């Protein structure tokens, strides 16, 4: 399933044309009214982000589209870029108009290099159609977009690491504050938005904030694109309103017999069947769109091992809790698998996981223990069978 109904139904460039008629504050007001929240998973209100960047004083500002879709089990941005690149670029142009940027950068995941010729062609076509260039739509508004290729590091999906990478440095998260909206690319205010967020921004300008708010919940408005994979009958790309329950989603994709679902990718939550009633929304289970279904035969320790191996490899290595903590959690899983992990040590590892969540420098280390902690919490019985119990007599 590779088409996204709502995106397909949009009139090309209607959002941009609307934005050109509006003043900068009005564009931001529309986005703010829609309560659009970052679709990359963090859920930061887009209108607030744009407003910060718009009110920052600087000689130059940048719009950066985060297409470093690296979260395991996420592939919706790839489809959006393949099928609806114009909508994304339209969203970037609207954002540029809103904050006063002249340059946009699409940070494209290294693994998506094959998309580049297509995207360059789209950009060229937009330049020819005066949708990009020195005078966008004939107005005194210069804006152009270039593509920057990532080199395959998961951490570069973190917005400040992404900016470091574009600046030519090792992709590693910065200290926050300051935030990119004030001190971003080359020290200038920069809006970093996910591919999907920008596409929705274009839709919102076209159809209005009220249309967007008519979907979803009060705190999580609108529609979300999901990448569904794993043990289900119909994996693929879906669009659902936010607030959908896990069970409802599973029914649509033919995965209702799952024992657990990983929502939000490797760094997300592992939701057991007993909690399938919970809602996928920023106020309950937040997500960047990745849904991985685990069928009844899955060994949760094996799942965990896989995730932690990923984090050990993908941690940038900068901060202590993430660099070494993930290694210790992985070793802990291996001890659990071998039945050599004591109860005391398991408790210590859970405490370590909490310390990592609290003390890591960026979202990677802060969220990487989530899967470990939720598996230990929800699949205790399964783990208990493998821990070493004290022997008596």
């Amino acid at each position, binding site marked *: 399933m590779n088409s996204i109904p709502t995106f397909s139904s949009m009139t090309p460039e209607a959002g941009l044309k609307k934005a050109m008629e509006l003043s900068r504050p009005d564009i931001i007001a529309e986005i703010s009214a829609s309560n659009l929240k970052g679709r990359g998973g963090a859920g930061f209100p887009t209108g607030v982000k744009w407003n910060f960047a718009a009110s920052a004083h600087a000689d130059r500002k940048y719009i950066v589209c985060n297409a470093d879709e690296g979260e395991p089990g996420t592939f919706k941005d790839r489809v959006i870029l393949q099928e609806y690149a114009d909508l994304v670029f339209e969203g970037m142009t609207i954002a540029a108009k809103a904050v006063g940027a002249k340059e946009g950068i699409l940070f494209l995941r290294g693994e998506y290099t094959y998309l580049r010729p297509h995207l360059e062609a789209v950009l060229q076509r937009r330049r020819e159609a005066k949708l990009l260039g020195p005078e966008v739509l004939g107005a005194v508004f210069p804006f152009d977009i270039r593509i920057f290729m990532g080199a395959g*590091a998961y*951490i570069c999906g973190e917005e*400040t690491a992404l*900016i*470091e990478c574009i*600046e030519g*440095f*090792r992709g*590693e*998260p*910065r*200290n926050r*504050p*300051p935030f990119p909206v*004030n*001190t971003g690319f080359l*020290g200038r205010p920069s809006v970093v938005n996910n591919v999907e967020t920008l596409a929705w921004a274009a839709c919102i300008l076209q159809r209005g904030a009220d249309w967007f708010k008519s979907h979803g919940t009060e705190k999580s408005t609108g529609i979300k694109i999901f990448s569904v994979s794993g043990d289900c009958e119909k994996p693929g790309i879906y669009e659902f309103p936010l607030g959908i329950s896990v069970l409802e989603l599973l029914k649509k994709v033919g995965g209702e017999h799952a024992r657990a679902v990983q929502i939000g990718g490797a760094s997300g939550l592992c939701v057991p069947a007993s909690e399938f009633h919970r809602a996928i929304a920023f106020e309950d289970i937040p997500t960047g769109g990745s849904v991985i279904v685990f069928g009844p035969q899955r060994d949760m320790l094996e799942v965990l091992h896989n995730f932690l191996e990923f*984090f*050990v*490899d*993908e*941690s*940038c*290595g*900068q*901060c*202590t*809790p993430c*660099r*070494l*903590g*993930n*290694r*210790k959690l992985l070793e802990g899983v291996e001890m659990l698998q071998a039945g050599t992990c004591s109860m005391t040590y398991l408790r*210590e590892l859970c*405490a*370590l996981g*909490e*310390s*990592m*969540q*609290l*003390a*890591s*420098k960026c979202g990677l280390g*802060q969220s990487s223990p989530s899967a470990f902690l939720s598996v230990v919490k929800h699949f205790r019985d399964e783990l208990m069978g493998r821990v070493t119990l004290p022997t008596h007599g």
Partner: protein
Amino acid sequence: MSNPNPLDLDIARRAPTSQRAQTIAATASAQAIGGHVSLTIDGQPVKVPLGTTILEAAKTIGAHIPTLCHHPDLCVAGVCRICSVEVEGMRTLQAACAFPVTAPIHVHTHTRKVRQARRHIVDLLLSDHYGDCYTCKRNNNCELQSLAQEYAVDFFRFGHPEKPRHTIDTSSYSVVRDLDKCVLCRRCVRTCIDLQEVGTIEVLGRGDQSHIKAFQDKPLGDVVCINCGQCINRCPTGALHAHDDTDEVWAAIDDPKKHVVIQTAPSPRAAIGECFGMPPGTPLTFQLNTALRRAGFDRVFDTNFSADLTIMEEGTELLFRLKKALLLREPAAFPQFTSCSPGWVKYLEHFYPEYIPNLSTAKSPQQMFGAVIKTYYAQKHGIDPKDIVTVALMPCSAKKFECNRPEMDASGFKDVDYGLTTRELARMIRESGIHLPDMPKSDFDQPFGTATGSGVIFGATGGVMEAALRTVLEVVTGKPVEALFENANIQPVRGFEGVRYVELPIDEVGPVPDLFKDHVPHWNFLKGQTLKVAVAHGTANAKKVMEDIKRGGQFSKCHFIEFMGCPGGCLGGGGQPIPTTPEIRKARAAAIYSEDADYQIRKSHENPDVMRIYNEFLTDGPCSHRSHELLHTHYVVRGKYIE
């Protein structure tokens, strides 16, 4: 006479923005808004200038927040996370070193969450830190060890490596790297890239495979490293230390056939007390003389002697260059650069080899002394130079490289056999059972026993320039330098400003002193000239000046520029006691300048021992054929690229 130096060159610094943005933003916001902000730390109200970090704010009320990756000389990194604190209303803990206070917040520095996170961080670091404290150069002076104690680590919660994973890199004459002890605080990387702008080392690899490596994983001896050792001075553990020559020196001392002489430089004398629990800036020059004799050295000499000799040679070289350019109208390489700092010399050989002709050919005081000891001193005292072992106490790790340069054999032998750092010598003294501060005072040995204040101030940035000016101005104008500068203190070249620029008009000239009569007919060519000099310390500042010279800017019009490889000059050298911070450098500088003020003789050309060597040995005077053979050297075009 002097003008405030407006040098503010926009040279792109190489440290990642992640590590710089913090400081910039904090400063910018503080400047933009100004004013103060009130916050509470552990319930105590604090008022600090806007943009102050939580760490700095906590210091003002005596709340201790532990640090590891933080260093007052370096930009903020916020990577070790040991300084994590709780800020009310924030989901995660915040790094106190990296969090600028811009709003009234409530900070808690030792809640349960904070304590647990810090303990876990220490536990994690120990789980990745191979080596035991007994055998470590940094035993008792290790920040990781202190943290383990502070957080009451009683066992290795997350294990401890049983085997080393890296081989120790001993390829460099100066810096030894033991990656098994590295805690990846990256202070060395920030030192090398940002403080010194050399960029020898970087982080390679990702996650728990990340490690500090030189270019292409090559050993340190094979890459563009200037041996300044600033990385050693900032390493919190024993992962970086200076090449240890103490065993060789002990062996020489224990060999009855060897005549072991040591020269001591002014900077270590102002700092070595720190290794014995004295406050920074406690000069122990004369106590050290006693300690060294008791430890077994046969003679103790003062590097100030050869510093004065250096001034005579280097100052004369400058006057000869001026004569060449102004009197003979022949091309001469200007500005002349000082060559005392081996870190700076190697920096120039790597990064600006086209400017080697500008470098003074005069050897550094260390090397001059070595050559003099194995020739003049050996002859005078009837000692076979092959039996003499010359040791130099230096504040410097690059001196170890310098004394091993193959061209440093003018005496027919290796001029200086071993360069010891302040830290190494402190260990030798301790091993001798001596508590240095308790030693009675004693003088230096003859025939180099008289020193001048000019020699002493070589230890501080601007000191070589001040010493040179004291001599050059007097030699040329015939008037005492006190007529121009009160107490001969040439204040404009002093201080810690990264780059200083001074203009000195020469209104009148005097008669040519006897020492120069054979070479210079008169000084008239200098009359009405303005002597332009500059001082830069730390290679990052040297880079600014060099780039300006390349562009034909203000500094290209200078006649003489003093460059020191290390921030603060020798007193902040890579061989000095750890820690070295801006405050400690200031205290050491104060000790050095107060020692200068105490000397009877303040000017190199008035040193009777120096005059005697020109009368008895180097009879053709400074920069003559003989002195060129012994006291001057040549340089190597190294370039930035290695094979």
